[in-house]
């Protein structure tokens, strides 16, 4: 089956989330092929899961001081700081063989793409088969959920899914460099001791590609390896392409009408 391989380069958090949703909306109407997209983040952004409460989770003053945008994802899960990372999204109709079936079934299938892709970089990862109890902390990477990728016992890639308009979107982040300092500076905690404890726990349990490989790898190389891994795991042909006019216009509208205001700071921070 022919898929589009789309690399939208760096964008801000609002654009990045709007583009994912625009591709999904257009796909639901049959206006584009199933898509594997790669993207990066500039400036850095903190993304919250669909159900996370921004006021309870985010220190907006710290975000402003550190130049970190805050955006809500259409997908589930917890907070992720996106900075130096490779992010992918996969968008296809629910009946597409690549994503069909239950949530865990599709997770497992897509994880194979990541495992094969990382294998091409010489990174051995395993797929966490036991989700264990529901995670408690606000930060996403502090524990591997079901079918997430673990290297040397530490979580390497975080994934989240949404099912809307008869389509599935799964996006995931592969951190190139660890930046737990910034992540834990922009999240809210009941005390500094709690912040430090959670940061320590996160650092123990999560890993960046640089830490796993012992060197930095250029994002382009990672993208190529992951694209090849997904193509092999899902049995799909990837054809490089760009965004359609309809997708661009939909994304612009979603930035304005939805994502710019998806995680507004409380009035005390904006001074309004």
């Amino acid at each position, binding site marked *: 089956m022919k898929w589009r391989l789309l690399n939208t380069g760096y964008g801000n958090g609002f654009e990045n989330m709007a583009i994912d949703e625009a591709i999904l909306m257009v796909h639901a109407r049959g206006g584009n092929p199933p898509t594997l997209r790669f993207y990066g983040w500039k400036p850095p952004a903190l993304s919250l899961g669909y159900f996370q409460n921004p006021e309870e989770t985010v220190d907006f003053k710290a975000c402003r001081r550190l130049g970190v945008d805050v955006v809500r994802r259409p997908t589930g899960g917890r907070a992720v700081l996106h900075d130096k990372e490779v992010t992918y999204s996969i968008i296809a109709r629910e009946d597409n063989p690549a994503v069909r079936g239950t*949530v865990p079934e599709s997770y497992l299938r897509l994880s194979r793409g990541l495992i094969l892709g990382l294998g091409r970089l010489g990174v051995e990862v395993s797929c966490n088969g036991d989700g264990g109890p529901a995670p408690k902390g606000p930060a996403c990477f502090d524990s591997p959920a079901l079918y997430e990728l673990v290297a040397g016992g530490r979580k390497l890639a975080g994934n*989240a899914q*949404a099912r809307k308009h008869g389509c599935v979107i799964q996006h995931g982040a592969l951190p190139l460099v660890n930046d737990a300092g910034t992540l834990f500076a922009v999240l809210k905690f009941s005390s500094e001791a709690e912040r430090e404890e959670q940061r320590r726990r996160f650092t123990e349990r999560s890993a960046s590609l640089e830490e796993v490989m012992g060197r930095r790898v250029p994002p382009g190389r990672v993208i190529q390896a992951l694209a090849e891994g997904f193509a092999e795991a899902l049995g799909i042909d990837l054809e490089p392409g760009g965004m359609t006019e309809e997708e661009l216009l939909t994304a612009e509208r979603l930035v304005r009408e939805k994502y710019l205001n998806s995680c507004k700071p409380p009035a005390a921070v904006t001074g309004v």
Partner: protein
Amino acid sequence: MIMDGLLYSEDHEWIKVNGKSGRLGITHYAQEALGSVVFIELPEEGSRVAAGEPLGVVESVKAASDYYAPVSGKITAVNGELLDSPGLINEDPYGKGWIAEIELEDPAELDKLLSPEKYGELLEKEGK
């Protein structure tokens, strides 16, 4: 598991009709496919919804999934207990895990829904 006495949508919602209103939720298959439900966004009481349109969102193990209105109408009640205990959707999808009650706008829409037998055939056809 499919319950008798209910009507089903192709999007895996059920409705139990009582006169001009109905109580609705997601099916046993749907909750199984999602996995453990950890959050739910309920529709607003008094809001009007159209058949097939998103009614709210459920979050399971890291997937946020829309669920849809099986029929058009006005939401007259929601199951607030789910906000504290979303797991009821997994434990008892046709009972304590009900999501909302709706005043039917057009009872003729019920004809487009599936009987328990037809819904069973749909699941079988889709290999579920």
